[in-house]
């Protein structure tokens, strides 16, 4: 296996929301061309990690390198220049509700380039075709189903052919068909555009089909970093609870509470 180049390096990052620590001395390296899934319990810092990579959040300590640039230290214009090469798919699409599907996908072209209207039209239709929604170009976001909205958002995110794609829970709340569609699109786009993809997700099945690596977060650190096959056969209780969807295990079912009988009998 060829040695792939490092593209994202997260070094000893700490992050807290006020008093609550979310990420605690976390380090992670991602190589070019990989599809990396980030998993973990809810509130465990997965979305925070995406925020740090995208430069929307600043770690209290530690560094986040994208192609050798330390993201938290970048000036606004340098950060914006970097973001032109990063695409992000937000959890529910985050389409601009006052613009049509076509206008949403055309947005990055209009804002970041000087292309002619004809050129933009061609490119937008091509991107929509890639996600299977060219026929929906004139619809408004409110007229789209969840799965369709997310596909449009995906088309919008890849308009400028980014080198890095960030996905925030792309499968959450979708029917199985849509999940399959999005999963296939992620894999195809990653290969076709030579991207590196980071997916924050809860959906294990789809992830195991897609990802090259699965990174599980726990207690603000990387708990494990395995290939999908290794996840399937792991005997670690935490991973097993996660993979098999067991109600109780290292992540307890019961919220910490007093003794049950005592609580019932208390007047």
């Amino acid at each position, binding site marked *: 296996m060829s040695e792939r180049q490092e593209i994202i390096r997260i070094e000893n990052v700490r992050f807290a929301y006020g008093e609550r620590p979310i990420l605690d001395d976390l380090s992670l390296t991602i190589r070019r061309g990989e599809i990396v899934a980030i998993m973990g319990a809810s509130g465990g810092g997965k979305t925070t990690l995406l925020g740090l990579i*995208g430069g*929307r959040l600043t770690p209290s300590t530690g560094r986040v390198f994208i192609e050798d640039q330390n993201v938290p230290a970048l000036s606004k214009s340098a950060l*914006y*220049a970097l*973001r*032109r090469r*990063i695409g*992000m798919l*937000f*959890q*529910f699409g*985050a*389409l*601009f*509700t006052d613009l049509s599907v076509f206008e949403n996908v055309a*947005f*990055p072209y209009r*804002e*970041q380039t000087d292309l002619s209207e004809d050129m933009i039209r061609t490119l937008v239709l091509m991107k929509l075709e890639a996600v299977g929604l060219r026929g929906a170009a004139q619809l408004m976001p409110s007229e789209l189903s969840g799965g369709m909205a997310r596909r449009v*958002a995906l088309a*919008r995110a890849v308009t400028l052919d980014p080198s890095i794609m960030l996905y925030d829970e792309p499968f959450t709340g979708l029917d199985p068909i849509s999940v399959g569609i999005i999963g296939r699109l992620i894999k195809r786009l990653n290969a076709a555009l030579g991207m590196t993809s980071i997916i924050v997700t809860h959906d294990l099945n789809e992830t195991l089909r897609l990802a090259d690596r699965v990174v599980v977060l726990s207690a603000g650190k990387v708990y494990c970093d395995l290939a999908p096959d290794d996840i399937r056969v792991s005997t670690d209780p935490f991973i097993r609870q996660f993979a098999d969807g067991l109600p109780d295990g290292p992540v307890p079912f019961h919220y910490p509470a007093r003794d049950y009988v005592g609580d019932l009998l208390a007047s």
Partner: protein
Amino acid sequence: MKADPISLLTSLGHAVTSRLDRLGLAARFAFAVFRVLGVVFLRFGLIIRELYFSGVRSLSIVIVSGLFVGMVLAVQGYEVLQRYGSTEALGVIVALSLVRELGPVVSALLFAGRASSAVTAEIGLMRATDQLAAMDMMAVDPLARVIAPRFLAAIFSLPLLAALFSAAGVCGAWIIGVKLIGIDDGAFWSQMQASVDVRIDIVNGVLKSIVFGVAVGLISVFEGFFAVPTAEGVSTATTRTVVTSSLAVLLLDLVLTVMMFRGLN
């Protein structure tokens, strides 16, 4: 059991510091908005769009309200003036009340209730649905593209709306005073023209509107931008915009009126 004075002091202290905190945040936000204003003028289409939604859509309520306020002024004014036999001064008091005070202030209050609340709700909703974050991640500054045009729309709209309010008011007063009550038409206009000075009254009224526009514009975009991204958060932000804007307009009106009209004697 907690000692009551202590907890009272703590909550009082907290109330003050949290408000100062927010004020500081608002000030930094205002500076950030002013910094991008230059760039925004190049995207005139965005400003025009917001002028439509804030200004044009407020036309009907402002003109109708102005008409009614003018009519009421005429009725009340006549009732008082005719006791002193000075009914031909009706035009004067109506015009001065409108141009100096009611035009700028009431149109600003109406704008705050109608247009500003809509702006706050819109921006708050964009915040709640990650649209602002998505724009930011696409390397487009939301301050320049979403916030600043709406801010500028308030500043440009208010002087025009105030003028329309005052004009409608004068017409309303004329309808009541001259047409219905029977005051002399010539006296109505000539007395008015003799007393309303363009520099002192009209220009100052326009200046007031511009100041109100800055205040109301800033408040509405600020509350929307920092709204808690939930349904209640947006609703709270919207009501806060209306309340804070109204209070700000009235307070600024007091300050400006003293500054502008005190030395006239």
